[in-house]
Structure formats: structure tokens, C-alpha cells
């Protein structure tokens, strides 16, 4: 497997202009686009800091879905009546819009709509890997993976007797690549996150993919955390498959994407059976449909695809580079406030600085249990997640059972960080 080199510029026509338009974005006004952020909890405005788990949606995404249900809704799959044609067209357009968003060279065939990133990863494990891996073959993962990118491989290990290997992490919460070539020896597949959902670490994915391809392995990217925040180009990443979810990037729940190289997708067996994914069905067998429908059994999430396209359009309107710059600024602000107000009492699990990390801040505050911390924060309207964040092997490696995680997105601002810091101080008083 080599980098195809297709579309090296990586960004489809009509999308590049977003780079410039981000400069003019007034992030202070963005919050007003998100209706939920205007509600109050316990008498305080909501400070939503759980976007790494799931983001909120702007009005335009909600409107796009409502409008679709109100004016155009019908099932897809080639109905001949006008409504069905409209639904088909919007569903196809959504596929192309989402594909362009990640620089897919051939979005019409390579973008598979799934339920979410989890299903996308299970699809690769259940089809490509199940067909191509035999007992003794090696799959290389990392200590930073979300359970979604661990359990499908553990299931395959149980079923097939494949071996799992793990890339560790260093003192500064980055992947330790010192032994990469040795770890890659004999590896058939590498599955790696592009950004840790616990540490915020942006992994050197392209470097890993290049080494993996030299070793003859197929490379899977879990992009659930990075695609919503960083400009993504599958050619530059160098992955063969990319999985991500709409609900973490301003879109609805219930829809995600598996992007794959066409040649690989073509040769893969089908995943789920049902309507839509077949060309012919007989008493004694079936013929699968062509890409991308081959992997989309049953009525797909149609309105969700329409909402997903609206979300992608909104993100492009703001500009991914502007979003990243905004989040870098906020992360630096949070780091400075934390240091100034809490010093060593507040530990952030993740790379120092902002160069190699996104806006995911996993916190340990004195000996206050993360659940207690999150409970106190909730009283101030602050939404953070406390727990193992579906990354138990990583939590074991960090030596903690849970952290309280604050994660930033385009609609957050410095006042949100201030409210968070005030609420942490309150927890300090309560549990002193």
C-alpha cells in the first residue's frame, strides 16, 4: 500500500475559500447561533464544556432537518415520485459535501454513511480485517485509543487469534514512537486515533501511516476527535480508512462516516444485510450493490445526512483554521488561568503548551474525586464529563480511575473558562 498522491492539495474546489473567510469571524457572536447555549441550569447560563463527547448544534442545522421533514421527506433508494427524487438528491449531495470536507478524492463512492464512528470502525474490523487477517497476524493499536477502536479488535482477536500490539505514551503524553519500526514488524493493520479524547494529544498520524505503509500494513484513522476541530485531508493523513461522527461536529446523532480508499472498499465483503445494499436477491443467494450502497443496509439516516451537510457547511463558513486558532487561544488562556489560580493543585493530563494538543483538558483537582468535582461544576451550570471517557487502558496507564474533562469548541469563550475556574475554586472550598 502506498500513498496514492491523489489530490495532493487535498481540498476540493469550492472549499478552499473558507481559509480566508475565517479571519473575519466574530467568535463572540457565534454563541448566539446555538439555541441550547442560551438556556440556564440551576439559575446559571449553561457553560457547555463537553464537546469532546458530543457538540451542540446551530439553528441552521436544526432548521435544515425540520425543513427537510416538512417539505421534502421521502425514503431514498430511487423512488420515482418527485418527493423521493428530492430526498435522493439531498442525500447524495450530503455525501459529497461531507466527502469534500475531508478531502476525499472520490466522495460519491468512498463515503459510507454509518451510524457513527464506532460503527465505521466495526465495519472495517468486521469486513476488511475479518477477510484478510488470520491467526497470528498482528494489529497495532496505541495506548490512547477510545474503546471504539479497541473492542472491535479485541473481538477479532478472540475470534481469529490475531495478536494486538500497543504503541505506548511518553512522559509528556505523546505517542512514544522510538520503537515504531520494531513494533510494525509483521503488522497487517494499524488503527490509531488522530487526537486523544482524554489527553487532547494530536498524534503524528501521517508519520505513523507512512511507516506503516512501508511495512505493508493497512492504516485506519479514528478521526472522531480531530475531524471536528482540525482541517482534514485524507491524502495528507495517509490513511486508508477514516472514521468520524456527525454529532461531535455540530451535526445530529445517528450518523457517521467511514471513508475508505475505493480499491479497498470494492474488494471488501458486505457488512450488514438488508434492503438497499443488494443488486439482486434469489432463493439461493444475493448480489451486493455497488459502492457506496453496498455498505448501507436498510433505510439510512436521511434527515440526519441533511443536517450533517448543514453542519459541514457551517464549519466551512467559519473556517477550520479559524476554529483551530480560536481553540488554541482558549486552551492557552485556560492553561494560564489554571496555573495562576491553582498551581500544582490542578493537574492537566495532556501535552504541555498548545502545539501538539487540541482543546481537551482532562483535570485532576487535589484529591477531589472527578464525580464530586463535576457535581459542583454542574451547580454553576458548567457541563464537564467525569469518568474514564471510554479509554480504560489509558486511564490505567495514567494511574487514575477517572478524570474530569473540560473540552472546548468554537462556541466557547474566555468567560466560559472563567466560570469553570470559579467553580473549581468552589469545589476546593467545599472539599477542603
Amino acid at each position, binding site marked *: 500500500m502506498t500513498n496514492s498522491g491523489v489530490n495532493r492539495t487535498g481540498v476540493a474546489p469550492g472549499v478552499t475559500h473558507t481559509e480566508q473567510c475565517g479571519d473575519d469571524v466574530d467568535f463572540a457572536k457565534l454563541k448566539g447561533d446555538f439555541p441550547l447555549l442560551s438556556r440556564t441550569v*440551576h*439559575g446559571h447560563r449553561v457553560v457547555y464544556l463537553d464537546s469532546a463527547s458530543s457538540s451542540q448544534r446551530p439553528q441552521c442545522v436544526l432548521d435544515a432537518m425540520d425543513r427537510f421533514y416538512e417539505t421534502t421527506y421521502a425514503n431514498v433508494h430511487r423512488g420515482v415520485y418527485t418527493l423521493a427524487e428530492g430526498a435522493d438528491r439531498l442525500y447524495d449531495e450530503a455525501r459529497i459535501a461531507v466527502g469534500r470536507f475531508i478531502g476525499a478524492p472520490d466522495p460519491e463512492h468512498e463515503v459510507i454513511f454509518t451510524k457513527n464512528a464506532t460503527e465505521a470502525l466495526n465495519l472495517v474490523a468486521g469486513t476488511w480485517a475479518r477477510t484478510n487477517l488470520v491467526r497470528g497476524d498482528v494489529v497495532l493499536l496505541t495506548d490512547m485509543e477510545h474503546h471504539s477502536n479497541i473492542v472491535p479488535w479485541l473481538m477479532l482477536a478472540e475470534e481469529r487469534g490475531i495478536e494486538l500490539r500497543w504503541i505506548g505514551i511518553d512522559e509528556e503524553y505523546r505517542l512514544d514512537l522510538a520503537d515504531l519500526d520494531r513494533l510494525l514488524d509483521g503488522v497487517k493493520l494499524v488503527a490509531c486515533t488522530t487526537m486523544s479524547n482524554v489527553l487532547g494529544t494530536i498524534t503524528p498520524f501521517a508519520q505513523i501511516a507512512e511507516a506503516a505503509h512501508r511495512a505493508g500494513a493497512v492504516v485506519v484513522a479514528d478521526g472522531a476527535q480531530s475531524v471536528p476541530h482540525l482541517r482534514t485531508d485524507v491524502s495528507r493523513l495517509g490513511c486508508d480508512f477514516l472514521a468520524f461522527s456527525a454529532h461531535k461536529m455540530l451535526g445530529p446523532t445517528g450518523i457517521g462516516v467511514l471513508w475508505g480508499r475505493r480499491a479497498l472498499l470494492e474488494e471488501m465483503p458486505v457488512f450488514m444485510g438488508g434492503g438497499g445494499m443488494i443488486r439482486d436477491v434469489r432463493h439461493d443467494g444475493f448480489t451486493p450493490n455497488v459502492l457506496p450502497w453496498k455498505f448501507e443496509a436498510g433505510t439510512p439516516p436521511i434527515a440526519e445526512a441533511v443536517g450533517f451537510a448543514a453542519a459541514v457547511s457551517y464549519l466551512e463558513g467559519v473556517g477550520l483554521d479559524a476554529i483551530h486558532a480560536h481553540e488554541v487561544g482558549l486552551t492557552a488562556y485556560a492553561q494560564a488561568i489554571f496555573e495562576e489560580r491553582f498551581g500544582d493543585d490542578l493537574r492537566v493530563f495532556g501535552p504541555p503548551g498548545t502545539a501538539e494538543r487540541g482543546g481537551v483538558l482532562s483535570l485532576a483537582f487535589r484529591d477531589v*474525586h*472527578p*464525580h*464530586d468535582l463535576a*457535581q*459542583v461544576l454542574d*451547580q454553576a451550570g458548567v457541563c464537564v464529563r*467525569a*469518568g*474514564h471517557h471510554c479509554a480504560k487502558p489509558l*486511564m490505567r496507564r495514567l494511574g487514575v*480511575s*477517572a478524570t474530569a474533562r473540560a473540552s472546548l469548541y468554537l462556541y466557547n469563550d474566555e468567560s466560559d473558562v472563567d466560570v469553570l475556574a470559579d467553580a473549581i475554586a468552589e469545589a476546593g472550598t*467545599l*472539599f477542603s
Partner: protein
Amino acid sequence: MTGLEDLYREIILDHYRSPRNRGELPAPPAQRVEGFNPLCGDEVVLYVQVQDGAVADIRFAGQGCSISQSSASLMSAAVKGKTVPEARNLIRTFKAMMSVHEARLGDGVDGAGSTNGSGNEDAHDSATDLDSLGELAALQGVVKFPVRIKCATLSWNTLAQGLDEAEETSTEATNT
């Protein structure tokens, strides 16, 4: 409005900061039993020594949030020296207090509750029982925070399991 003071009563914070009966007991003769809350990683290891039909001694270890740890501490203080049937009664009463349904009736959150005569009687009964709980009643505020109920009941479920196992062990010993 539900405030933090409903959850983090002074007694709870006191038991969290200075837990009673924290530690281990040699097992056997004590029964060692583990409880685990997979959702948040709370963990309790309970050592129960049943002698002559009573909880002669009890210790707990493990880690978790203030609610799970203080509940374990309060529980250990409450059942130490009690007969096994008394301890089982206490478990039942405590778990009834942790029932979301009853809390709603008591709170008047569930508007339909007022038309439900038997529901009111239940609420009355549990209110009477609360008197028998002593310090443990401090944990009743937890029920207004449904996500945290599992934290509060973890050590109690573990105790129930420990008493069951202790009984099995003693039955086996008698039979052989």
C-alpha cells in the same frame, strides 16, 4: 431548587474526610467481598466478620467519590455489632430511602403522585423508617441526584452479598 448542601451534608463530608472502619480484616475468618461501579470506577472491598449471628467486625477499603466512600463509612458504623437480621433490615430501609420513586412522591415533583393514595402511604412509611436510620438519613439528599444513587448504594449491595456469602460459608461448615 436542589442545592449542593442537600447532597454534601456535613456528616457526609466528615465521614469522607475521616472514614470510620477503613482497613482490612484477615479473611478468613472474615468474609472478603468486592463491589464495583463500572460506570464511574468506584470500588469497595468489604471485610465482614460474622460471629454468633452478628456482625462482630467490619472494615472497608477501595476508592471512589465522597458519596460512595462516606456511605461505606456510615454503613460500617451502623451495622457493626448488629445481628445479621438487623443488618439486613437496615439494608432494606436504606435502599428504600434511595428509591427515586419515593423521593419524587415526597418532593411533589411527580404531580400524579397526589392522586395516588397508596403512594402517599409509602412515603409516610419510609418517613417513619428514616428515624431508625440515624446519621444515615444524611444520605437521603442523594436521591435528588439520581446519577449518584449507585455511588451511595454500592457498599450496601456489597454488604448484602457479604452477608449472603458468610451465611453460605457457615452453612457449609455446619454440614461438613
